[in-house]
C-alpha cells in the first residue's frame, strides 16, 4: 500500500473550542421561551400560537428574502443561527392577545428588516429587533396594541383554548379591535384609576396583558435557569429589577395611596419579560460587567419614570430601546480594570 502523505491542518492556537456556538445559545433561549408560550396559551388560548406563528413567519421570511444565497442547496448562516426565529417569538410574546395576525406578521418584517438587516445583520444592530418591531406596531396601531383582552375565565380548558378571538383573523389592512370584551391592564388600572391588582394574580399571570408578560412565575423560573446556564449576563436582569424596586419604593413611601407598591411594579406589565428576554439580548447590551450594571440600573430608572410620570402606562419597551442606543457609550466608559493596572484609562 502506498502511504498517502498526510495533509496536516495548520491553524493557530488554541486548538480546542468549547463547542457552545452562537446558534446553540440562540436555541437555548428559544427553548427557554417555550414555557412562556405555554403559559400564554393557558391564559389566552390558541390566539397566542397564532400570533407567535405570524410574527415568526414575518421575521423568517424577511430574513430569507434579504439574505444572500450562497448556493441553492446550502442555506446561508444567518437563517440557521436562530436569531430570526428568536426575534419572531419574542415579538409575538409582547403583543396583546387580540392583535390581528397581519399586524404581528408586519411587526416581524419591520423588526428584522429595519431592526437588524439594514444595520448590517446579526451583531451589528443597535436596537433589539423584536422591540423595534413592537415599537413600529405601537406607533402604527396605537389602539390595537393597547386593547387588552381579559384572560380566559377557565384557563386551560378546551373551550377557552380553542376559542379564537375574531380580531386575530382580521383580513390584512383591516381593523382588529372589533372584539367587544376588553379590559384594562394592571398598569393602566393603577395609573388611571389607582386601582391595584392582587399580587397573586400578577404572580400566576391571571391578568390582562401581552401574551408572554403576564405569568411572572414562569418568567422568573426560566430567567434563573438561563442565568445558571450562562445564556445571558445575569447582571442585567438583576440590576433592572433592583433599580425598579428601589426607585419605585421612594414615591410609594411618600404617597402609598397614589403610587403602586414596588412589588406591584416588579410583577406587572412587561418588566419581567423585558428584563429577562429583551434587555439581555447580548448584541444590544454592554459586554463589560460594569457596563451591564449601568445599563440595567438605567433601564430600571427609566421604567419607573415613564410608568409613574410619563404619558403611557408602560415604559419597558422604550426604556430598553433608549438604553440600547446608549450601549456603545456605556461600553466606552465602563471598560474593565486591567489585571495589574489601576483604574482603566479609557
Amino acid at each position: 500500500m502506498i502511504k498517502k502523505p498526510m495533509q496536516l491542518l495548520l491553524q493557530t492556537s488554541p486548538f480546542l473550542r468549547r463547542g457552545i456556538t452562537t446558534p446553540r445559545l440562540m436555541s437555548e433561549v428559544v427553548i427557554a421561551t417555550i414555557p412562556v408560550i405555554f403559559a400564554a396559551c393557558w391564559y389566552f388560548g390558541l390566539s397566542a400560537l397564532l400570533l407567535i406563528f405570524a410574527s415568526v413567519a414575518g421575521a423568517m421570511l424577511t430574513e430569507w428574502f434579504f439574505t444572500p444565497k450562497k448556493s441553492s442547496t446550502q442555506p446561508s448562516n444567518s437563517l440557521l443561527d436562530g436569531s430570526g426565529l428568536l426575534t419572531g417569538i419574542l415579538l409575538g410574546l409582547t403583543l396583546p392577545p387580540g392583535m390581528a395576525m397581519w399586524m404581528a406578521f408586519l411587526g416581524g418584517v419591520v423588526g428584522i428588516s429595519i431592526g437588524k438587516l439594514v444595520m448590517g445583520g446579526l451583531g451589528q444592530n443597535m436596537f433589539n429587533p423584536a422591540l423595534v418591531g413592537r415599537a413600529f406596531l405601537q406607533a402604527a396601531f396605537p389602539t390595537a396594541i393597547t386593547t387588552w383582552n381579559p384572560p380566559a375565565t377557565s384557563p386551560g380548558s378546551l373551550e377557552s383554548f380553542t376559542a379564537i378571538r375574531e380580531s386575530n383573523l382580521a383580513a390584512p389592512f383591516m381593523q382588529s379591535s372589533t372584539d367587544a370584551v376588553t379590559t384594562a391592564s394592571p398598569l393602566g388600572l393603577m395609573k388611571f384609576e389607582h386601582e391595584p391588582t392582587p399580587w397573586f394574580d400578577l404572580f400566576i399571570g391571571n391578568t390582562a396583558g401581552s401574551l408572554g408578560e403576564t405569568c411572572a412565575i414562569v418568567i422568573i423560573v426560566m430567567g434563573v435557569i438561563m442565568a445558571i446556564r450562562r445564556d445571558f449576563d445575569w447582571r442585567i436582569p438583576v440590576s433592572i429589577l433592583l433599580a425598579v424596586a428601589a426607585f419605585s419604593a421612594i414615591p410609594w413611601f411618600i404617597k402609598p395611596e397614589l403610587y403602586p407598591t414596588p412589588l406591584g411594579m416588579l410583577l406587572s406589565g412587561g418588566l419581567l419579560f423585558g428584563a429577562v428576554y429583551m434587555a439581555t439580548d447580548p448584541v444590544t447590551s454592554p459586554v463589560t460587567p460594569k457596563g451591564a450594571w449601568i445599563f440595567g440600573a438605567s433601564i430600571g430608572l427609566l421604567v419607573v419614570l415613564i410608568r409613574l410620570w410619563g404619558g403611557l402606562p408602560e415604559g419597558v419597551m422604550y426604556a430598553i430601546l433608549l438604553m440600547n442606543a446608549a450601549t456603545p457609550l456605556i461600553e466606552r466608559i465602563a471598560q474593565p480594570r486591567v489585571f495589574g493596572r489601576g483604574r482603566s484609562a479609557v
Partner: protein
Amino acid sequence: MKEVELTCSATAKEPSALRLVLTLGIAGLISGFILVFVYQYTAPIIAANKAKALREAVFKVVPNSAYLQELHYKDGELVRVADESGGEKVQPGEILYGAYGPDSGFMGYAIVGSGNGFQDTIRLLYGYDPVQRAVLGMHILDSKETPGLGDKIYKDADFVSQFSPVLVDPSVELVKGGRKADNQIDAITGATISSDAVVKIINNAHQKWDDKTKGAPPKFVPPPPPKEKEKDGNE
C-alpha cells in the same frame, strides 16, 4: 453634479462694490415689484377667506345663527369691536363673537379657547348660551393630535355632538363609559388625554368669560352695506 464650479476663477477680476450693490438692488427691485403686485391682488381674497372661515365656524358652534359681530369687554360691558374708532387695538385673545339669528336676535356667544393637548396646543371655538348656561357646540380650529386617536376630538361625530348642548355648571366633566348627567362628556376610548384637554380648555375659557357674559348682550348692528358694494365695484 459635474457642473458645479467649486472655486471662483482666480484670474477673474474682483467685481467692484458698486456692481455688488447693483446686483442685489436689481434683484430686490424685481422681487419688490412682483411681490407688491401679487400682494395687491391676493390680500383681499385672503382676508375674505379668513372671515368666511370664521363665520362658518361661528355659525357651526351656535346653531341657526346667521350674523356675527366681534365683541370685547370694556368698562364693565361687552361692546362691539367695530365701535372702537381710533382707540387702542383689541388683542385677538380678548375678542369673542356674538352670534345672531336671521332676525338679528341674539343666539349666543362664540368663544375661542386654547390649551395643551397630547401633542401640541389645541385651539377651539365653542358656542355658549349665557341663558341656558350651556355649551352649544364645539369646533376644533387647530390641533396636531395623533391621527386615528387624538384627532377623534374633531373627526368623531359622536364626541363632537356631545357638546350640543352640555351644561357648564358646576363645570364640564369628563367621564368614561357613557354620560350620565347633562354636564358630562364621555371620553374617547384610547384618547383620554386629548378628550380631557378639550374639556379643560372649555372650562378654562368659560371661567375667563363667565362674569363678562352675564350682562345683556349688545344689539346687532348690521354693517353698512354700501361700503362693501363700493369695494366690490372697485375690483
